């Protein structure tokens, strides 16, 4: 029994090492002097710590601009996605309207269609509207989240009808009920969905790569991919860029991980 406990704890330590090593190494190398990481055997810690690559990134490579783009787009995507999907998810769960069931079945069926299928026509459509290379173009896919609608509906089903009925008898309008009764009860799922959208937008690559054609509009992942083709040899600089890209989302996730994991499990149990 003792041996089993030791072995299991060792196994966990080993997995932890494999999981953490790339991230710790990334941070460590980002503080090394130019060229220090390109030797054999690879050094694990800087001989002396330097911020030169972070300075280079923000002063010469336009990292501040990319960071701002990523942050602004992720924030706007979150606000827009929430204001489109939360009322709809609630209505699908709690308000009766003609054709609701049929519409819902249609949306369920549409879930199997991967969004990438429409990428090319969507690009042409936005091009004809003059939205290529704009924030608006980059934000458009986040408005049409069927998954988000489901997540909210699933949660809203648990709101007791009596609560809504009571508010109606008190003379509240549907809009007031939504604001004063429904939104507070939906708060946990709003945080979860907001987190999903923020991280999803921040980490997204294919769509911003296509729609943001001008370098000044690049998000961090697009800029990092472009930089890494230019600066293949500059390991230390690339690691600093990776740190700037990963750190915000990692910190955000760690701060709100309970919401993230709960929502993820709720979404996957339903298939």
């Amino acid at each position, binding site marked *: 029994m003792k041996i*089993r406990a030791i072995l*299991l*704890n060792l*196994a*966990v330590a080993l*997995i932890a090492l*494999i*999981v953490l090593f*790339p*991230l710790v190494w990334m941070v460590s190398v980002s503080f090394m002097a130019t060229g220090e990481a*390109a*030797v*054999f055997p*690879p050094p694990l810690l800087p001989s002396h710590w330097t911020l030169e690559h972070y300075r280079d990134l923000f002063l010469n490579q336009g990292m501040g601009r990319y960071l701002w783009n990523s942050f602004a787009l992720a924030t706007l995507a979150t606000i827009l996605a929430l204001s*489109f999907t939360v*009322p*709809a998810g609630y*209505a699908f769960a709690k*308000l009766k*309207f003609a054709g*609701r069931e049929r*519409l819902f079945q249609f949306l369920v069926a*549409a879930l*199997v*269609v*991967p969004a*990438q*299928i*429409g990428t*090319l*026509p969507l690009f*042409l459509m936005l091009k004809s509207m003059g939205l290529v290379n704009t924030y608006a173009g980059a934000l*458009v896919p986040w*408005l*049409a989240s*069927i998954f988000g*609608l489901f997540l909210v509906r699933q949660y809203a089903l648990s709101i007791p009808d009596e609560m809504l009925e009571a508010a109606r008898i008190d003379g509240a*309008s*549907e809009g007031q009920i939504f604001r004063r009764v429904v939104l507070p009860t939906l708060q946990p799922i709003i945080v979860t969905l907001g987190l999903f959208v923020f991280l999803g937008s921040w980490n997204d*690559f*294919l769509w911003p790569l296509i729609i943001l054609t001008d370098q000044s509009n690049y998000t*961090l992942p697009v800029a*990092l991919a472009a930089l*890494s*083709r230019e600066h293949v040899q500059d*390991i230390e600089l690339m*690691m600093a*860029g*990776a740190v700037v*890209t*990963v750190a915000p*989302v*990692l910190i955000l*996730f*760690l701060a709100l991980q309970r919401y*993230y*994991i709960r929502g993820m*499990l709720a979404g*996957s149990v339903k*298939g």
Partner: protein
Amino acid sequence: MTVVDPTLAKVRPSRGRGARERAAWAFVAPALIAIGLFFALPVIAALLLSLTDFDIYALANLDNLRFVGLQNYERLLTNPLFWGAMKNTLTFAVLGVPLSIAASLAAAVILNARVVKWRPIWRVMFFAPYVTTLVATAVVWRYLLHTRYGVINWGLESIGLPAVDWLGDPSTSIPAILMFVVWKIFGYNMLIFLAVLQTVPDDLYEAARIDGAGSWKQFRHVTLPAIAPTMLLVSIISVASFFQLFAEPYVMTQGGPAQSTVTVLYFMYEEGFKWWNLGSASAVAFVLFLCILAITLVQLAVAKRVGAYQ
């Protein structure tokens, strides 16, 4: 409550229902319009686009657009590059799905053991790579896999094994990218497995132990039957996600060496946004869709039979 004003009873529900119906439409309309405009319409348009020869000339002037029927599909099916991309994607899925699920399951079973300390911390830590930015961690792994200075080769050499040209050799490029992908995603399915494992009552393990079952037998006869339905669902969902690999080869190998890591989505991207053959690229998108749809239908059929789907 016993005395009901007849006028009120008549007016209230009808007026209430009408207002509620109008409010409901106001709530769902923005989302439905967005879904129709930016999701449904493009998907339908993709089907039409795939039947045209939309290319860079049509992009400049729509008069150059012609309807070509199934020609794009015919040309794809005779294009060795497309078949190469299909083969690579299948290789990714066939190797990656069992590998990632085995890793997820192993981690879940280990973390589910009561004797392991600080379990909530490990749970979050093992999941963390999943939320990291793919492009950034792919860049990190490209250097970890570096032939001369990479930590992985250093590890191999220090135990007496020869260095491997991971991303430079067509026979190791897919396994190399898979190492990264498994590292990044195993935490996701691990959490799902853990959630299911926690529903297995301790009595079952207790009973098995009393019957003299060792760790392996407990796993085989208690754990595995309990998670079988979840495992099935998870594996088929994973296939669909492995069909959509794009950023990994884009960042780590740019499809190389010798086209060995060009996936279907990567092929679509190059066809559409590098060569501007949007008609033919849409055909690729539809073939990809049909593959994923076939997998999803199998998923639903199998799940229904197992009874895991509600």
